[in-house]
């Protein structure tokens, strides 16, 4: 198994895929090496999705680093799927190796192709997006509770100001 196939095997949903499927899927990616450089910036066109092979990418929004993603993460796929501009910037923190699939190739595979590699990619992205939804839902619950707390504080403040 070559390097790209080995990296793909580490992705959630692809652990059980046959080697020939992973080899075929791996050939649809380009490899990009970069160091302390922007992969894309917030607001850029979403022209590719990425699998982090080595190193780490910072996720930046509004100038703030929200999180850091490491090897085996799929990133940039939501924009590549929806066509919406990048909702966050991605920056290599040190040296990083990425597997890059252009949005055009991704659309061809995901929308039109009926093959084992295409099915594997769709399922890997489903799992990845599903996990992001779980995290986002937990964040939403946390923020909603914080907002309720703020409401109580605001009510107390306002009550103190009443005649």
């Amino acid at each position, binding site marked *: 198994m070559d390097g790209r196939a080995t990296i793909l095997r580490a992705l*959630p*949903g692809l*652990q*059980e895929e046959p080697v020939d499927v992973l080899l075929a899927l791996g050939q649809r990616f380009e490899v990009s090496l970069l160091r302390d450089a922007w992969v894309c910036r917030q607001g850029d066109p979403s022209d590719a999705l990425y699998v982090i092979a080595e190193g780490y990418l910072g996720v930046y929004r509004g100038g703030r680093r929200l999180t850091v993603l490491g090897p085996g993460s799929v990133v940039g796929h*939501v924009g590549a*799927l*929806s066509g*919406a501009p990048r*909702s966050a910037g991605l920056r290599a923190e040190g040296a990083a190796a990425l597997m890059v699939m252009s949005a055009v190739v991704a659309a061809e595979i*995901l*929308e039109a*192709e*009926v093959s084992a590699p*295409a*099915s594997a990619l*769709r*399922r890997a*992205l*489903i*799992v990845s*997006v*599903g996990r*992001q*939804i*779980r995290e*986002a*839902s*937990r*964040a*939403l*619950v946390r*923020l*909603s*509770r914080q*907002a309720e707390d*703020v*409401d*109580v504080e*605001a*009510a107390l*403040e*306002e*009550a103190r100001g009443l005649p």
Partner: protein
Amino acid sequence: MTALPPIPLLDVLEPASREALRAALVLHRFAPGDAIVTAGATDQSLYILLSGSATVVVGGLVITTLGEGALVGEMSFFEPFPDRSADVVAQTAVAAAGLERSSYAALCGASPVAAAGLERLVLGRLAARLAETNAQISELVTAPPVGILERLRRRMGWG
């Protein structure tokens, strides 16, 4: 076995794929208050709501309400280690078309075009849901807090 009604959600599939997928679906009925899926459970059925409505509850908070055409259980369906992330509870009487994971595996062999159609459907729905959830988060983060008294004032028409 009760025949499935037409499922508009599947109209995007070409007829042969649609029929192959319909043949793999089983009709389920839920009474109000029944759990369609339960958080933490490891079953792997996917449901298409045919009628009625259901609430999605995470950590005791109602995240959204689902109606006809919604997918339920699709996040765990392709997971290697399924773990339901939310309770989905029937709000009214619900009819749903269910697909077992083993039926999907059989579909992949018998009708890969139908299986691909299902995968595209699920991926599209999940991408839309993630965008919607992220928008809700952005709204919470950026909206100024509104006090309870202010809400009362607005509701009661005070001052």
